[in-house]
């Protein structure tokens, strides 16, 4: 049989060189309790992911890059911010690799580092939401949206106007609350938010 005419370079040569490093897997296991090594690459996570259409890395690629220790590439990925935490991947994973938890861990790392991320608005929305929680213990939608709009193009930008129209329509239907409510135990709240973000589990003896 005649050999097929084709480019003889192996496919891999186009890919950047990767030096596998197991440290990220060990850190993930230690700090967020996720066993990335359990993945055997069946890709069920990616077939079921409703948001894969908007991702730059498929869910299985996140796991594979993590196994290889490529934290830089993972931190640049949109995928971790596009994930809606719908839990379909974890639910269907035969090895119960908690990918949503691992991606939360990456997001928290990035938020603590304070550098740029590919989905700035999503990070900003989360931050403003937590500031709302910190100030009253409950979220007041009016102030949440107001703070977010001011931070993203001002109170009269096109996005803000669209949201203002929606807000007005909701107000007419009695779906906007005018005064925020707050919890009484402010001392507890202050003590909690006085701590730095410390969710990453530390190494234990």
């Amino acid at each position, binding site marked *: 049989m005649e050999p097929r005419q084709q480019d003889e370079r192996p496919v891999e040569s186009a890919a950047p060189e990767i030096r596998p490093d197991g440290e990220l897997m060990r850190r993930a296991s230690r700090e*967020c309790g996720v066993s990335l090594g359990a993945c055997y690459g069946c890709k069920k996570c990616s077939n079921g992911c*409703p*948001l894969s*259409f*908007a991702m730059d890395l498929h869910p299985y690629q996140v796991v594979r890059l993590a196994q290889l220790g490529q934290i830089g590439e993972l931190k640049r990925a949109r995928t971790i911010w*596009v994930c*809606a*935490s*719908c*839990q*379909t991947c*974890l*639910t269907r994973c035969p090895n*119960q690799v908690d990918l949503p938890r691992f991606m*939360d*861990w990456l*997001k*928290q790392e990035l*938020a603590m580092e304070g550098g740029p991320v590919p*989905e700035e*608005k*999503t990070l*900003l*929305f*989360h*931050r403003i*939401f*937590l500031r*709302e*929680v910190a100030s009253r*213990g*409950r*979220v*007041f*939608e*009016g102030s949440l949206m107001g703070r977010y709009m001011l931070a993203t193009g001002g109170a009269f930008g096109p996005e803000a106007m669209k949201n203002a129209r*929606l807000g007005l*329509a*909701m107000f007419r*239907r*009695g*779906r*906007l*609350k005018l005064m925020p*409510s707050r*919890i*009484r*135990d402010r001392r*507890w*709240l202050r*003590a*909690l*938010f006085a*701590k730095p*973000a*410390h*969710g*990453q*589990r*530390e190494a234990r003896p």
Partner: protein
Amino acid sequence: MTEVGYYPGCSLEASARDYAESIEGVAGLLGLKLVEVEDWNCCGASAGHSLDHAKSVNLAGRNLALAARGPQPLVVPCALCFNRLKTAQAELAQDRSELVAEVAGLAGDPQQVQVRELNGFLTSAEMIEAMESRRKRSLTGLKLVCYYGCQGQRPPKITGHPQYENPTGMDRLLDRLGATVIDWPAKTDCCGASHSVPRPDLVFTLVGRLYDEASRRGAEAIVTGCQMCQANLDLYQVEIAAAQGRPVDLPVFYLTELAGLALGHPQAGRWLGRHMVDPRPLLARLGLTS
């Protein structure tokens, strides 16, 4: 009156007031007294688990500690709050030392709380029986699909849901209340949830798929048991339809609104008037206005 614990969550105080009113209405008709958790706080939601794991466990954990002193089960209408409370309970059970300093000082034991999602609570065999026996009118002619979303079902090791890929509670209840319930494969697909503010385009794509699937199967309305799903499906429907160049007219009910309607609650019409996609023309056509 039977007392149950109740954790409403932040949005039921505001944008989901219609949901809160219908829950209270139906509970009253069923002889249930909802005892709100004293001084409850936000569960931390998506922002909490995305950016600060320990605070999200502590925020949800405080609610559990407070709820432990109240009646059980603790009924939670918001699917995300439910999920965060259950997650915190699991985290606190295995790791009390470092995550829980803030919660440990509170009076109650988080592990004593029986956290129930409102949907599951209202669609137990006994509740379905109770509602059918109190039915004042049949929802005849109402062609519906039931949309369950993510957080009440997944992941099953946290939610404990026995039918996480194909839940049937709302289907069974609405069938017994006389509606025509249509089976469909998108019951537990994601609506995009918290992306609605920073990335509405993602929500539009996901919700657009739900509209397509519901319409293709002949549904004239969608029923949800989660106020985030309801908001994403109801608030932007006109915009999504315009963006995708096709008409969509699918009222999005809460389970409790339809239960209230079937049970003859006098305020049912008022709750329905708070929706963006007005369901009253459809109900009027079917002779179901209250």
